[in-house]
């Protein structure tokens, strides 16, 4: 069974099952060999079990991608909260504050309702792959923002000292883009679940 690719916790469960079934058959009076062979036959062919367990494991891959997405959201949320007090600075005008609220609201809405814009992909591997790719893109985006966009464009155009709010707003926007990208995996899973619920 292990050779068939069934993971150890599931294997332990199957082993326990097999032991209990052998014991029951032995109590019914079967010889040890016969009890063992019958229990093995009853548990089913390893190839079929492997296929079924793999289906569940694939779903776990989707869960992992979702968790990575949520982790991204948490990190982006944490840093957004860190810069949130900057928007209360007296030098910050109403426009950056308004944009900041809009960015946060749009990010929250994208996580809540963005799945409606996403395709309902039936293949969980594909959903996991797309979600993982978006997380990678989110990482690349943050790196590009810090290395290239921030010094070359943001600071040069906006200016660090004069318009404080716009500077921090650019950070908030960058975090929001990363959070939205990281939410694609979660959205794809939700879109697939919705379609399945409708089909059921």
């Amino acid at each position: 069974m292990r050779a068939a690719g069934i993971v150890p916790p599931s294997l332990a469960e199957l082993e326990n099952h097999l032991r209990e079934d052998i014991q029951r058959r032995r109590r019914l009076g079967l010889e040890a060999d016969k009890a063992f062979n019958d229990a093995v036959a009853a548990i089913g062919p390893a190839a079929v079990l492997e296929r079924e367990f793999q289906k569940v494991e694939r779903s776990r891959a989707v869960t992992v991608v979702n968790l990575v997405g949520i982790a991204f959201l948490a990190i982006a949320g944490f840093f957004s909260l860190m810069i949130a007090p900057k928007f209360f600075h007296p030098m910050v005008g109403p426009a950056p504050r308004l944009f900041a609220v809009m960015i946060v609201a749009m990010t929250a809405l994208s996580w809540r309702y963005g799945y409606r814009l996403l395709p309902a992909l039936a293949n969980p591997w594909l959903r996991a792959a797309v979600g993982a790719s978006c997380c990678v893109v989110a990482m690349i985006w943050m790196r590009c923002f810090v290395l290239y966009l921030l010094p070359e464009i943001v600071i040069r155009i906006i200016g660090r000292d004069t318009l404080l709010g716009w500077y921090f707003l650019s950070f908030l926007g960058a975090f929001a883009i990363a959070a939205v990208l990281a939410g694609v995996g979660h959205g794809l899973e939700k879109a697939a679940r919705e379609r399945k619920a409708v089909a059921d």
Partner: protein
Amino acid sequence: MIRKELVAASAEPLVLAILAKGESYGYAIIQDVKARSGGKLNWTDGMLYPVLHRMERRGLIKSRWGESETGRKRKYYSLKKDGKAAMTKHHEQWSLVHAVLAGLKKEQYV
């Protein structure tokens, strides 16, 4: 013997109904189903576990590792709130199918 499609479709509602009575584990669930159906609902034993894992992933049931009477590790499953709701839904749907079939059968003898 009951067709395998029906056996597969009935797995989730049966597991939910058994766990509604209290915590149980894979082997006991299978034996319970076999006993209640007089051996006519014959699952391939190992196939129950992917079903249980999928149900757990969907938040219908939860599991914990405990000890059997012999001291060996054993995985126990129990129903969650969503599982109770799913069981009610299953019950309504299966009752509807049963009612329709019973009605049609009754008409045949009128």
